[in-house]
């Protein structure tokens, strides 16, 4: 049977993490499951977790009056969902909805922030990984703004 540690170690976002750091994460982790159509969080709610998607697909949405929900990004297997747990004021900026059955690892934000404060090496490692994700998404957003298909 797979342990939580081995599941974490195999996830793309956490690959290569040192074992002591993995164990810190295990202490804050739990397995979660969302049915298709289920909202994982809503804009404005307290952001106290991040999710490492193991299977499925999650739409990040913004509600626009007269247009309804607009999907701005799709997060899939191997991706992470949510960094607002890390950055004050710890509120979700978007809605997240499971598009299909989604299995993920949920990491408790309060637990993680405490561990990061206590163990700066762990905190720095986690921050580097999140910075990469944030950078990739910022670059992708800039390309979206460029409207690259409009030749």
């Amino acid at each position, binding site marked *: 049977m797979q342990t939580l540690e081995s599941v974490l170690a195999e996830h793309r976002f956490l690959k290569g993490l040192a074992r002591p750091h993995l164990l810190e994460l295990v202490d804050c982790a739990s397995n979660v499951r969302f049915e298709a159509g289920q909202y994982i969080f809503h804009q404005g709610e307290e952001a106290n977790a991040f999710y490492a998607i193991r299977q499925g*697909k999650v*739409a*990040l*949405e913004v509600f626009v009056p007269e*247009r*309804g*929900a*607009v*999907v*701005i*990004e*799709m997060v*899939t297997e*191997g991706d992470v969902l949510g960094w607002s747990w890390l950055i004050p004021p710890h509120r979700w900026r978007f809605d997240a*909805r499971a*598009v*299909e059955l989604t299995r993920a690892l949920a990491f408790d934000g309060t637990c993680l922030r405490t561990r990061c404060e206590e163990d700066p090496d762990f905190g720095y490692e986690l921050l580097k990984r999140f910075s990469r994700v944030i950078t*990739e998404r910022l670059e*992708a957003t800039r*390309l*979206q703004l*460029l*409207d*690259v*298909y*409009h*030749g």
Partner: protein
Amino acid sequence: MAKHEQKHAMKTLPDPMVPHPYSVRRVSRDTYDTFTLELEQANGAGGPPFAPGQFNMIYLFGVGEVPISISGNPARSNALVHTVRAVGTVTKPLVTLKRGDVLGVRGPFGSSWPVEEAKGSDVVIVAGGIGLAPLRPALYYLLSHRDAYGRVVLLYGARTPADLLYTRELEDWRGRFDIEVEVTVDAASGDWRGNVGVVTTLIPWARFEPSDTVAMVCGPEVMMRFTVQALQERGVAAENTFISMERNMKCAVGFCGHCQFGPTFICKDGPVFRCDRMEPFLWKREI
């Protein structure tokens, strides 16, 4: 060759500057601004043989002439197929043509996708917007010679779901087990279940072996620049990456110089180029 034979040969060679009359057999709407025209010759025959990636000059009498890639199946010669986005002086009236209307066609011109050279390798096709049209003949070819290739991957990006071309065929290709199809859009409404994000975000996770992959890329130039970058980050060599360029093509045979790009003419030396040959010029603003 004897002198009289040369003279005879010169007489019989078709003049590339003379358009041949074709009539419209069918016009079908792909999106709100993009249409596919099926053309036939007066005797009901389709077009001349072409290689995937080549283009024709389409002449709308009294309006003007535009270069349009051939988007049909190279194995089927019963119709000449072009997909046209209605954005310009010629293309806007072009898509209002009806069955039986006549227009002029010169071609086919230019270089082609390296479908023969890619045999034995994985092939990744990256298309942006209407860039799928010039790549569709290559896809037809790859799928009709499927055993000759490794993995075949199609990554296709468009602005919105309403901008996606050939949606029925995309569904068919998705249903096959021998091609991986990933489609992404920049923005979508809540009922969209596909990917959201630019096409470059699909490249890191697509299943192909970068060291043995031939990449074929077509779309607006800015999209191709970032795609080439993402392919290189994944490990696909520039000499195995091919892009289709577009410039203001007029004569289509390298005489007029309108489509000069660095040391090349897009119409004659392209439109399909090996990326390492064009890369030094891709990032030059002055060109």
